């Protein structure tokens, strides 16, 4: 019990208000345990002690709804049922910090300062971190009681934030869906543009190719007809004319004979020698048997 008191004492220190902050309305807090043998708290005004806090909300209780913004609360304090988060159009992007999302949703820390964030911080306090879960819960509840903060406010704050998150997610889901739909539509439109463009251009290319092909075929047919016409003309002409025979090539020039010396004027002094005497050696018939007969055997 002493350790528990130690914890709660620390918690009290944690939730102690700053010097300028006004104290909540007088509402005594009973730190003492209930009287022995009695289920009732010693101070009924304290009401909700750790053991008697309705941890399970009554089924008839409506689920916590988002809370209105603080300024709205100030203007109409009795507008207690929290309203839904404001606009489905969120300025925050999908990767925005949740604090900015809560701020955009108009969720602020309750006036008494005890929201789910603070309670979360209390539960995660280093002094309580090693304690069992129920001990931490009890300590936090004790602190809330000390500050005269209804647990409902904390739960409402959590529900508000939860709803804001859900609304933000839903809005972003809608945005994403719209983005996808828009993107899909645009892509389909672009693909249709491409299809039409390609059909037109490919059609033009096909027409050009067909035109060239047709022109080639026409030319081939023209060439065939022209060939027949030329054959016809040639057939007529060849009845009367034939190609002129190619003149025979001129005969090859005759090989020039030995140069004969001009006849010298008659000079009685110059009496020609006998033919055999003046014939040059080269002009002599080859040595050997003459035409007169076969060589004599053994003459060599």
């Amino acid at each position, binding site marked *: 019990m002493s350790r528990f008191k130690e914890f709660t004492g620390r918690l009290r220190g944690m939730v102690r208000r700053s010097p300028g902050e006004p104290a909540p309305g007088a509402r005594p807090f009973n730190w003492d345990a209930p009287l022995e043998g009695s289920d009732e708290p010693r101070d009924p005004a304290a009401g909700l002690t750790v053991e008697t*806090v309705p*941890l399970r909300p009554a089924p008839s209780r409506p*689920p916590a709804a988002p809370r209105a913004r603080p300024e709205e609360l100030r203007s109409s304090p009795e507008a207690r049922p929290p309203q839904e988060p404001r606009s489905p159009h969120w300025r925050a*992007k*999908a*990767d925005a910090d*949740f604090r900015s999302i809560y701020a955009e949703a108009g969720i602020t820390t309750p006036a008494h300062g005890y929201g789910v964030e603070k309670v*979360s911080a209390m*539960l995660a306090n280093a002094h309580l971190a090693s304690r069992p879960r129920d001990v*931490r*819960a009890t300590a*936090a509840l004790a602190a809330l009681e000390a500050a005269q903060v209804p*647990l409902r406010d*904390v*739960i409402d704050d959590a*529900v508000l934030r*939860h709803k804001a*998150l*859900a609304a*933000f*997610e*839903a809005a*972003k*889901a809608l*945005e*994403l*869906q719209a983005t*996808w739909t828009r*993107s899909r539509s*645009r*892509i389909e439109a*672009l693909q249709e543009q*491409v299809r039409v*463009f390609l059909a037109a*251009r490919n059609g*033009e*290319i096909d027409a*050009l190719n067909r*035109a*060239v092909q047709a*022109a080639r075929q*026409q*030319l081939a*047919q*023209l060439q065939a*007809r*022209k060939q027949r*016409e*030329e054959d*016809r*003309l*040639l057939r*007529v*002409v060849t*009845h*009367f*004319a*034939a*190609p*002129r025979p190619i003149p025979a090539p001129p005969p090859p020039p005759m090989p020039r004979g030995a140069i004969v010396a001009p006849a010298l004027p008659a000079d009685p002094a110059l009496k020609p020698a006998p033919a055999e005497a003046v014939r040059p050696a080269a002009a002599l018939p080859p040595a050997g048997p003459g035409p007169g007969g076969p060589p004599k055997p053994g003459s060599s």
Partner: protein
Amino acid sequence: MSKIKEFVSKGVRLIVTDTEEGGHPEAAREKEIPPEAFETPPPRAARSGVPATVEDFAAVYQEAGIELPPHGYGVDKVGEMLESKRLAPLGREVKATAVLAALEAAQVGVRDVIQDAVRRDGALDAFESAKEREVQELRERSEGRVKTIKEEIERFLREKNAEIEGLKQAAETAGQAFAQLQARKHREEERLYDVVAHFVEGTDNPITTAASSRATVPVKPRE
């Protein structure tokens, strides 16, 4: 070179020339015609208005300025004479002799007939060349246009595909951002749930975690 051009390129020798008596003296004397006699002027125009599909070459000859000789005996008429019913059963030489006799009777030289044939042949060559040129020009124009079209297609596809890729990338990025948001939201819900669960047990905890997240998952349209 066409057959007739090749035929007369070296000049021609007339086959039937035994008609000295009673024929045209100058024509009768001519036994050979030199190649110079068959030199034709170049075609008048490099282009032809006659379509390539023309069946009768008369339009081609007319466009080339080829007219029937004044005496009326051109290669066409001589061709008709050779194929006339009277001469058809006769031998080739007989037919040629008969036609030559007729030409001489009309004081028409064979040279005129051959020149007419050569001119027509030249006109046909020019016509064929013009049509070949037209086809070539058409092919070049077509190839140029096809090239331009392909460049247009490439540029168009590049632009559109870039836009499509950008849209897909943006959608993918948005989807990823949303998935990360859901994960972060889930952790935040778990945190809130855990805080509240310290005081409210089980199903009475007004904070839900997974079910609501699943309900808001958008359906991605099919690609």
